[in-house]
């Protein structure tokens, strides 16, 4: 096959091109021809097709995501906002933190281990590209029904992949989620988040400026794996027959990535780069066009200098390859030699592949012949934008009318007790330590809190004990009942978790996992969820710093529950003041903070006992969440509480059982006046937490709650070796522990 040069393309306008096979729509192809004033070359077509895919261009979601930039709360912490590889916030003492959550859903269904592993690799490079040292990872996961045979294929592979990659990089895994629901059958969600730390002056941006500066590709050689993989894959639905489509999968090399991290940090330390970009989805097409587009525009690349693993790759394939563990840096000429020395020190291959020009076009050459000549903005930032039609689904009203409050409730203490045991041993409420024990949570020696705590927390300064905390949450059942409220409940829960650990919530990242945007029902869910999240962030004062959208999580006509996953980042001045969840001291008083209402829609109880989903999710009150957060943070700082646990799915009883098992002490509970034991134990009203208060602090604590107007009810005491609800039932801790801990191993081991 002869080379399709720019010159050749101009001379042969009528050549048939495989735009359809590459996933482009007819009008999109026409627009490319219009932009270029000719037909694209094969290489140009390759670039546009991957960069204009849903995954890379956000063409269906962009119009909704705009709100995150428009409804921005007053927040002095924001240093870099949406639009970069990841947002950056100020956490004080000259430190900045960058964090982001991304999805690797589709690749993880096809090849669970490598899909999940490369998901971790990708998000870590995003964080690294901002100039930060990655310090921790989190992994919100969703799988099909726990008993389904395919879950036994997908889950162990995903978990091993996340562990295999993250452990080998030396990044403590400090949090995440594992949720089972049959709606994720065939569409597991593998989201991965990373936190990085740097000094303010070390923030780096992805842009190529300064004509004459060199463009250096470094890291792994480029191979034929995953050509167009992620971008094309994540932009279409699977056939209902399962993973029939098997494009080349990428294999991760965490060892190479570890070298890339250390090498890049040393390069940053010597201030050798003017701009930097990781290579992820869409590979070199993305890196070169984004760097050029964000800079002054001009860049010239000699594509034949790219080090290859397979010498037979065509230029189109090289541009589309998603080979992992690569980075692209823009370096002033006088620093190139030192840059290369550092790469050599770390056994990292580095090659000058081009330079920044004073023009405005991205020009790519292959053995001297020009194969790409495009305005980079049209590739990277000015892709198609769709106003997809959306409408409230016809079934939404009926779903909401199917009130969970009408479900039969336990009528005897024995029944209540049995339901408590069923709840805490159900796959979603059971202990996840079979999974989290496959992740290294100790590496780097800074992990103050990790699973099963409410939030993960790492120390970032050894002298001052400054630390950051993160929690990720999302409840697809709530979001299905009401996507606007569901997104806000995800935000509220993550916010509450961070506050419960003693850290002050600062900012958020999100991963929006939805079905096909071509379905107006799904698009409505998406529109509602983004609106809810943007409004919620405005109200809570936590800006969205960045995130990721994953669409087409759908098999046939059936979409997953709308699943917005929210990661809240918090800061704590002194990690020694952190609040754990464990009830560790006999005699301490248990207080329930917040209001408990008859709220069972989307609850764990309705799912576990009645396999029911209907009604409305718990009411959202973000002002209350804020107040609760302030109380939890003050109480932690001033030593008024020794333990705190947020209440969410499973309600009070779930939280108390977890805190008791963690601390190795029982609890004696009294049902407060005006509540039934059932509602007290299982309601999922938001804006609540349970805390353990030393007796000496009781007055101070209740005075504070009273003065600030936060309801605080004394519900019992840490005591004994069982969880007892007075006048109702008593379950020994041993029985609770085996119920809670046996489920996941017996399903998966």
């Amino acid at each position: 096959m002869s080379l399709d040069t720019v010159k050749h393309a101009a001379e042969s306008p009528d050549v048939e091109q495989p735009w359809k096979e590459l996933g482009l729509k007819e009008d999109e192809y026409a627009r490319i021809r219009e932009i270029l004033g000719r037909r694209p070359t094969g290489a140009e077509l390759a670039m546009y097709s991957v960069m204009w895919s849903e995954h890379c261009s956000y063409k269906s979601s962009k119009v909704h995501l705009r709100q995150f930039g428009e409804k921005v709360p007053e927040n002095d912490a924001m240093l870099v906002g949406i639009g970069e590889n990841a947002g950056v916030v100020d956490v004080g003492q000259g430190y900045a933190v960058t964090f982001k959550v991304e999805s690797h859903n589709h690749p993880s269904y096809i090849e669970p281990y490598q899909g999940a592993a490369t998901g971790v690799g990708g998000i870590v490079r995003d964080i690294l590209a901002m100039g930060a040292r990655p310090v921790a990872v989190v992994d919100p996961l969703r799988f099909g029904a726990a008993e389904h045979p395919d879950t036994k294929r997908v889950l162990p592979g995903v978990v091993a992949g996340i562990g295999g990659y993250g452990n080998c990089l030396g990044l403590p895994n400090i949090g995440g989620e594992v949720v089972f629901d049959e709606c994720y059958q065939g569409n597991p969600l593998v989201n991965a988040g990373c936190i990085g730390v740097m000094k303010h002056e070390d923030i780096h941006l992805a842009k190529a400026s300064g004509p004459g500066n060199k463009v250096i590709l470094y890291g792994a050689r480029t191979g034929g794996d995953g050509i167009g993989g992620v971008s094309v894959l994540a932009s279409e639905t699977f056939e209902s027959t399962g993973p029939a489509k098997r494009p080349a999968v990428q294999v991760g090399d965490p060892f190479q990535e570890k070298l890339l991290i250390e090498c890049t940090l040393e390069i940053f330390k010597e201030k050798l780069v003017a701009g930097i970009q990781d290579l992820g989805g869409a590979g070199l097409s993305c890196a070169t066009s984004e760097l050029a587009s964000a800079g002054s525009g001009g860049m010239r690349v000699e594509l034949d200098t790219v080090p290859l693993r397979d010498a037979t790759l065509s230029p189109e394939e090289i541009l589309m390859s998603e080979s992992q563990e690569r980075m692209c840096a823009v370096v002033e000429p006088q620093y190139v030699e030192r840059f290369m020395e550092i790469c050599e020190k770390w056994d990292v291959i580095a090659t000058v592949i081009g330079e920044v020009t004073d023009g405005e076009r991205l020009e790519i050459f292959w053995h001297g012949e020009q194969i790409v000549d495009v305005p980079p903005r049209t590739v990277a930032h000015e892709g198609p934008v769709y106003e997809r039609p959306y409408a409230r689904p016809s079934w939404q009203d009926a779903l909401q009318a199917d009130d969970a409050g009408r479900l039969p409730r336990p009528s005897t203490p024995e029944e209540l007790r049995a339901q408590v045991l069923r709840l805490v041993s159900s796959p979603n409420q059971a202990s996840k330590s079979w999974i989290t024990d496959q992740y290294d949570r100790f590496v780097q020696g800074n992990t103050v809190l990790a699973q099963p705590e409410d939030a993960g927390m790492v120390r970032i300064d050894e002298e001052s004990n400054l630390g950051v905390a993160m929690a990720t949450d999302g409840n697809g059942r709530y979001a299905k009942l009401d996507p606007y409220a569901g997104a806000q409940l995800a935000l509220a829960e993550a916010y509450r978790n961070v506050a419960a650990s003693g850290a002050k919530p600062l900012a958020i990242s999100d991963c929006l996992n939805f079905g096909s945007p071509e379905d107006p029902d799904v698009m409505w869910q998406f529109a509602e969820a983004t609106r809810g999240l943007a409004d919620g962030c405005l109200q809570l004062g936590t800006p969205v710093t960045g995130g990721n959208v994953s669409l087409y999580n759908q098999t046939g006509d059936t979409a997953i529950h709308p699943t917005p996953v929210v990661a809240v980042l918090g800061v704590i001045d002194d990690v020694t003041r952190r609040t754990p969840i464990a009830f560790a001291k006999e005699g301490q008083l248990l207080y329930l903070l917040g209001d408990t209402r008859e709220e069972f829609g989307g609850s764990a109880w309705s799912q576990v006992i009645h396999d029911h989903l209907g009604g409305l999710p718990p009411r959202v009150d973000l002002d209350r969440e804020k107040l609760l957060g302030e109380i939890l943070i003050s109480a932690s700082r001033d030593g008024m509480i020794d333990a705190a646990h947020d209440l969410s799915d499973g309600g009070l009883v779930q939280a108390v059982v977890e805190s008791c098992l963690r601390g190795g002490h029982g609890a004696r509970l009294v049902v407060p006046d005006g509540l039934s034991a059932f509602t007290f134990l299982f309601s999922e009203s938001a804006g609540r937490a349970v805390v353990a208060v030393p007796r000496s602090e009781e007055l101070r604590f209740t005075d504070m709650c009273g003065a600030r107007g936060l309801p605080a009810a004394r519900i019992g005491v840490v005591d004994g070796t069982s969880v007892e609800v007075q006048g109702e039932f008593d379950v020994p801790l041993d029985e609770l522990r085996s119920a809670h801990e046996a489920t996941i191993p017996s399903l998966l081991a």
Partner: protein
Amino acid sequence: MARVVVDVMLKPEILDPQGQAVQRALPRLGFEGIADVRQGKRFELDVEGPLDEAALARIHEMAETFLANTVIEDFTVKVEESK
């Protein structure tokens, strides 16, 4: 008892980080002249009963659906001469 060997190797286009690491280490150990190293898995199966065509077909199926992950790996099935 018959012995069947199933060799499973990553497909040629798939990155083999292990093989690469081994290859890069060799010159340091004084072994020159190895142009490429690929690392794979070897399964030795002891098969009961006669190793007829049906049995081999079943082993082939086992290799395809279980021993190898054909998304990223190729495999071969060989009967070993009995010792």
